[in-house]
């Protein structure tokens, strides 16, 4: 009897470690590519069947900053992302308020319409956007590229903000006015603090979306609006994998940082699985 119990116990603990093996394999699969990029970007003379690069060097980073104007490209990327975030937030605040707090006949239908740009492949409407922008001379301007990004960023922001506004408790607002606060005071001291986290998380997510956006940038960029993802793609085409790796590392760090920073505050998984009943 005790033998059987010990056997079962062993099986139980083994099962638990099997679960960890599974999780470990999963984490390896996710993080390993980045590790390879890091090694590649610091490695020198890493040829043949070697596990690790024989020599470490900063050469590729230096080279990457020499052949490409990294500050310029970073500036482009940041300017475009900032413009896109600003426009997306300005659009999403009123529209999100309407979706979250007002009665709209056929709300579901309107919402799925707003979210349609996330369903159709970006390259399909990117084509149309590019043709329109050529006509309006918006190609190769920061504003134009940001406007193209808006097609993807705005639905995100509207989705997140409408959920935030919907979560505002009517009773809290009533309590505030019962206690004698003017509408303006209610807005400033009750509504704003309540919705600020939602707005911030929507801004962060639209920022990373725009920062990482590749397809729509590729359709609308020019020589003055090369962004980091596009530059990485060009570098890949040039075939210097070490240099591309060095650029990728510079590109990827801010995104990962944002993910690790906001994970406590906003439950980022909510934003990915965002829309139900597609």
């Amino acid at each position, binding site marked *: 009897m005790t033998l059987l119990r010990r056997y079962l116990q062993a099986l139980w603990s083994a099962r638990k470690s099997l679960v960890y093996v599974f999780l470990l394999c999963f984490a390896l699969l996710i993080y390993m590519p980045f590790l*390879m990029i890091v090694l590649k970007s610091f490695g020198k003379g890493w040829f043949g069947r070697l596990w690790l690069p024989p020599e470490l060097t900063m050469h590729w980073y230096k080279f990457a900053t020499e052949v490409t104007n990294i500050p310029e490209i970073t500036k482009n990327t940041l300017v475009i992302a900032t413009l896109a975030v600003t426009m997306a937030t300005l659009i999403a605040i009123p529209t999100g308020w309407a979706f979250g707090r007002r009665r709209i006949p056929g709300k579901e239908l309107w919402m799925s319409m707003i979210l349609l740009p996330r369903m159709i492949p970006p390259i*399909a409407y990117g084509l149309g956007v590019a043709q329109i922008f050529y006509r309006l001379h918006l190609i190769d301007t920061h504003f134009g590229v940001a406007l193209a990004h808006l097609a993807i960023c705005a639905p995100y922001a509207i989705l997140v903000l409408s959920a935030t506004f919907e979560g505002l408790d009517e009773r809290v607002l009533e309590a505030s006015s019962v206690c004698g606060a003017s509408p303006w005071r209610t807005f400033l001291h009750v509504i704003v603090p309540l919705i600020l986290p939602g707005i911030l998380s929507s801004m962060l997510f639209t920022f990373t979306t725009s920062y990482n956006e590749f397809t729509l940038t590729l359709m609308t960029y020019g020589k003055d609006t090369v962004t980091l993802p596009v530059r990485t793609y060009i570098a890949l085409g040039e075939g210097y994998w070490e240099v591309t790796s060095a650029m990728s590392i510079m590109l990827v760090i801010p*995104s990962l940082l944002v993910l690790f920073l906001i994970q406590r505050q906003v439950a980022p998984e909510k934003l990915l699985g965002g829309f139900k009943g597609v």
Partner: protein
Amino acid sequence: MKHGSRLRSGLVTLLLMLPGLAGFFGLFFYPMMVALVRSLRPEGQRVGWTLEHYVRFLSQPRAQGVIVLTFVLSISATVCSILLSVPLTLVLRQKLRGHRFFRLTMLVPRVVPGLIGALGLLLLFGSRGWVNLTLLQFVPFIHEPVRMNYTIPGLILFYTWLYFPFTAVTTLSTLESLDPALEEAAAVSGANRWQVLRHVVIPLIMPGILAGSVLTFMAAFGAFSIPLIAGGNYRPLSVEIYRQINFTPARWSAASARAMIMAGLQVGYLTIYMRVLRRPST
């Protein structure tokens, strides 16, 4: 009076929605229409109507290959991400030590650019990458590096890597909103763990799995950066579209025709998918 105030409130609602609707029509609907009209024009002209681009593309034997490839890649990636997500979320649900870390890990492929993921995966699975080194070192029958990059299985793996978070996240959130009383009831009624899983948990989270898999499918169908740099000779529709505008002179009409076909196929497939699989309970 009441009628008037209702009208006014409706107007205010409309005004509030206006920015979003303007964005939708200006940046999505109008571009789609422009592409549609462009696809019906002869190449490089602003007048005249023709179906030539659709006919020419669809009559190529290669076109069928392209469409089939697009579907094969996106459907296989969807199936693979379901196969990965369900065990993963069942494990993560138990709140083991360090589950926060693995939850975060799940989101990583979605916050980095697809390009970089593809680059890392190409390095990892290349003939000199760690996967092949491990296989050569520890698996007795393998003496040649296994070719993964620029093959269809490799592409499916890359797609799954990049797009499974949609399925996993949606499944996890469904799983966590599940009422534990149902499982307890099943267990009390004498079902073993496997039966509980098979007959209670899985059917209950099915809507979540399906909704997530739709998201994965949509993303995989429109995937662009991965096949562009890791596809080699395999070009799904998105890359095919991009190739058309990379010719000099750019073939905008041909590209637009392909884009319309792509959008049409996606909407058609999703409609069928939702009809067939949507359960009354959702």
